[in-house]
């Protein structure tokens, strides 16, 4: 289905030197160029940098908490002065403040850190390039999407400074009735969430339309790079899973602001006072609506990561991905299944046999496509000529880390073994292995891999490797002990890390190890931050295709000009034609005619 109009475009090799071509570039002032830009690349970078800063912020919150967890009640004078007496009087953290930090860490990491970086950042910057599009289908909507995200972020941050009790304190899950009777920070949280939901709706519509409509001639779906497939599936998850949370948010807002009792059963007695509301509501309704979003959401956290890892592995093994088709089907199946497993977060809410059997079964089924994808990625290494570049190291690190996180999902997915493990640090360990050394590593791989495309310069390789090994070691020092804490029965969300419980005493030292892991992990990020900014100036200048890669983004100059390609590219073959027997170069780009 090649498009006749584009046949004219001359095939153009990967090694041509490129300066930024001004071909499509109309001159814009600073504001329209960098702040209110409608260029998908600028928006992508805005998303990515904001996301990274939020990751750093969410991390900092957690480093505070980790002190309280490792050394409960020990004062840190200067922090007390810094954060004020309503948070850390005399340098000792208040339980309210701990809960605040916990809830906001979760919210920020998921909704303001990883998703904006993975979908908003990489999706916006890479996806249109990888499908040979001049921009997103709706550039203005794209800009609005970022602005809604920004407003959501501001709302969330602002809530920390509310005099009446500060930010939300009921966990990122905001279970009512607790969230209903909580301080006004919860209202801000709900409003912030509505901004973020709007943002991702606008974004996901844009991604889907762009992918379907703006594909370069010759780029059939089965010639998509895995990353495009991942973003495509992810967008559907965002599009269809977020509205129910929006509904839930509206209902909780009504409960809090208008005094309805959707989530408030009759006869509540809060600290001796009979609750004023009419009652007749159902607290579990919230949990169903929340997890109907939040489970697909966790796959939103992982799929783009898997996509990035696939790209990097194909490029650094210099061979095609093994089982491309099975991966594509697995991604689609994963996306579909993720809508019918949500209640595996609710096994302990008093679930009957029928329901628990159904959700255990779907949960076991959904683990299979993940196994398929992981297996395909690992088998892709076999027979390769593996280069251990920085992006490759992070991509390789992802595999076993996601393996640990995924495997520990299995005992949680069976309602019976979930009894002792539910709401313990085992759960915390499980999902941090998938999101932190899992997704975060994948995102880091993506940053090192596409940085030259975005800036025209390489990141420093030595600092990169330093960053990887530091992160790899300390991520494990940080999260591995959580499994032992969890098996010992220590609950999550405990202000003192379990110190008040006798049965927890033998396990408490794990808290200390874990905390030092976290702080050392922060140190390990320093080379990255230096590298990230320094390379803008000092990084080695590169051409269009520094990695000798095959996918379309490498046909555009680095950095690509407004409008991306000098000649509308055309696609002649699948995404990973590396080491094709009988060719002089070991890679054959999609955009090369012969």
């Amino acid at each position: 289905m090649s498009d006749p109009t584009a046949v004219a475009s001359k095939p153009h090799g990967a090694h041509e030197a490129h300066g930024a071509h001004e071909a499509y570039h109309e001159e814009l002032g600073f504001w329209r160029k960098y702040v209110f830009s409608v260029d998908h690349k600028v928006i992508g970078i805005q998303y990515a940098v904001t996301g990274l800063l939020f990751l750093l912020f969410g991390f900092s919150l957690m480093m505070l908490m980790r002190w309280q967890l490792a050394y409960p009640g020990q004062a840190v004078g200067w922090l007390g002065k810094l954060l004020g007496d309503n948070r850390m009087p005399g340098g000792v953290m208040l339980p309210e403040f701990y809960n605040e930090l916990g809830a906001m860490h979760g919210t920020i990491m998921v909704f303001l850190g990883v998703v904006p970086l993975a979908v908003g950042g990489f999706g916006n910057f890479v996806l249109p390039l990888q499908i040979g599009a001049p921009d997103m289908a709706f550039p203005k909507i794209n800009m609005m999407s970022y602005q809604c995200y920004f407003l959501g972020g501001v709302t969330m941050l602002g809530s920390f400074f509310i005099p009446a009790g500060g930010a939300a304190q009921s966990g990122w899950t905001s279970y009512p009735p607790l969230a209903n009777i909580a301080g006004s920070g919860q209202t801000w949280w709900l409003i912030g969430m509505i901004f973020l939901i709007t943002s991702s709706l606008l974004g996901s519509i844009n991604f889907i339309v762009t992918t379907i409509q703006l594909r370069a001639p010759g780029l059939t779906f089965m010639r998509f790079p895995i990353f495009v497939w991942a973003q495509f599936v992810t967008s559907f998850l965002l599009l269809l899973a977020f509205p129910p949370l929006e509904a839930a948010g509206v209902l909780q807002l009504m409960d809090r602001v208008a005094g309805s009792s959707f989530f408030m059963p009759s006869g509540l007695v809060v600290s001796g006072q009979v609750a004023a509301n009419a009652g007749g509501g159902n607290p579990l309704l919230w949990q169903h609506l929340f997890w109907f979003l939040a489970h697909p959401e966790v796959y939103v956290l992982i799929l783009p990561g898997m996509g990035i890892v696939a790209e990097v592995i194909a490029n650094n093994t210099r061979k095609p991905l093994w089982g491309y088709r099975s991966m594509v089907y697995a991604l689609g199946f994963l996306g579909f299944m993720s809508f019918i497993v949500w209640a595996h977060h609710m096994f302990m809410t008093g679930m009957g046999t029928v329901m628990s059997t159904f959700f255990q079964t779907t949960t076991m089924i959904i683990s299979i496509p993940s196994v398929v994808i992981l297996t395909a990625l690992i088998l892709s290494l076999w027979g390769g000529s593996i280069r251990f570049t920085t992006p490759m190291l992070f991509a390789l690190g992802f595999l076993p880390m996601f393996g640990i996180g995924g495997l520990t999902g299995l005992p949680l997915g069976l309602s019976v073994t979930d009894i002792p493990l539910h709401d313990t640090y085992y759960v915390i360990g499980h999902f941090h292995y998938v999101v932190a050394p899992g997704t975060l590593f994948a995102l880091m791989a993506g940053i090192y891999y596409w940085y030259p495309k975005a800036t025209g310069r390489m990141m420093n390789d030595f600092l990169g490797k330093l960053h990887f090994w530091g992160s790899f070691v300390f991520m494990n020092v940080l999260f591995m002990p959580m499994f032992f804490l969890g098996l010992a029965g220590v609950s999550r969300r405990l202000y003192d890390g379990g110190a008040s419980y006798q049965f927890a005493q033998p396990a408490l030292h794990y808290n200390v190890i874990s905390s030092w892991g976290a702080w050392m992990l922060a140190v390990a990020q320093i080379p990255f931050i230096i590298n990230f900014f320094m390379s803008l100036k000092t990084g080695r200048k590169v051409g269009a295709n520094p990695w000798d890669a095959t996918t379309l983004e490498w046909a555009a100059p680095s950095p690509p000009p407004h409008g991306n390609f000098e000649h509308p590219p055309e696609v002649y073959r699948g995404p990973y034609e590396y080491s094709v027997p009988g060719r002089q170069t070991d890679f054959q780009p999609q955009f090369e005619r012969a």
Partner: protein
Amino acid sequence: MTDWMNLPTLATKHGAAIDTMNGVIHILMAILFVGWGAFFVYTLFRFRKSAHPVADHHGVTSHTSTYLEIGVAVAEAVLLFGFSVPLWIKWVDKPPAVGEALTVQVTGEQFAWNIHYPGPDGKFGRQSTDKIDMQTNPLGLDRSDPDAKDDVITLNQLHLPVNKPVIVRLRSKDVIHGFNVPEFRVKQDAVPGLTIPIWFTPTITTEEMRQKTGNPEFTYEIACAQLCGLGHYRMRGFVTVESQEEFTKWFDSEEAKAAEEGSDAWSN
């Protein structure tokens, strides 16, 4: 099989099966991970650029991995239908007859556990929110109700006879709490508006446990598992498992106390 997991010392009948299953799963996970990991590391070593400068366009051609994946699926199916579902049915659908079990009502509130025994008549007295008094009557028990006369209410003190099934009827006054006794392998959210029954059979008395663990202060603890506010971390109850005789003795003394309080409780 589960020693290496350092689980809290097991102290109920149904718990053994849970632990076994947990052990089996973790061993299976370990096998998978080590298998995959070994292959992974070996591949990285064997196909590094210096050792294998030219990549092979086709890579793996065998179908072994497919069989492996089917293997994983089968293993999961076995765990699911062989262990998990039957155990869940046993735990949820087959509670002991009220006759041979002791029934207790446990009501969570920020941040304490109210324990309510029906007494010899086996009937829980009427409760009404307007009778609630934080100090003297946290559950709002209506002492004028004949069923309530022999009821016993304690704060954070759950006494249980050993080797006798217990049915705990879980409730909450305010927000969601999590009833959780690690040694019992029991965990269940207490959801306001619902009364959720769970049951188990303690097999080891606190005394025996003290010898077993070599910890003279040992007590079973109820550790709230669900975030319920700023006091969540200290919402701690205590369970004493004792012989039937000790239990009866304790219960009678509590009842005596209740009688006195009761007398002035219904004068107002």
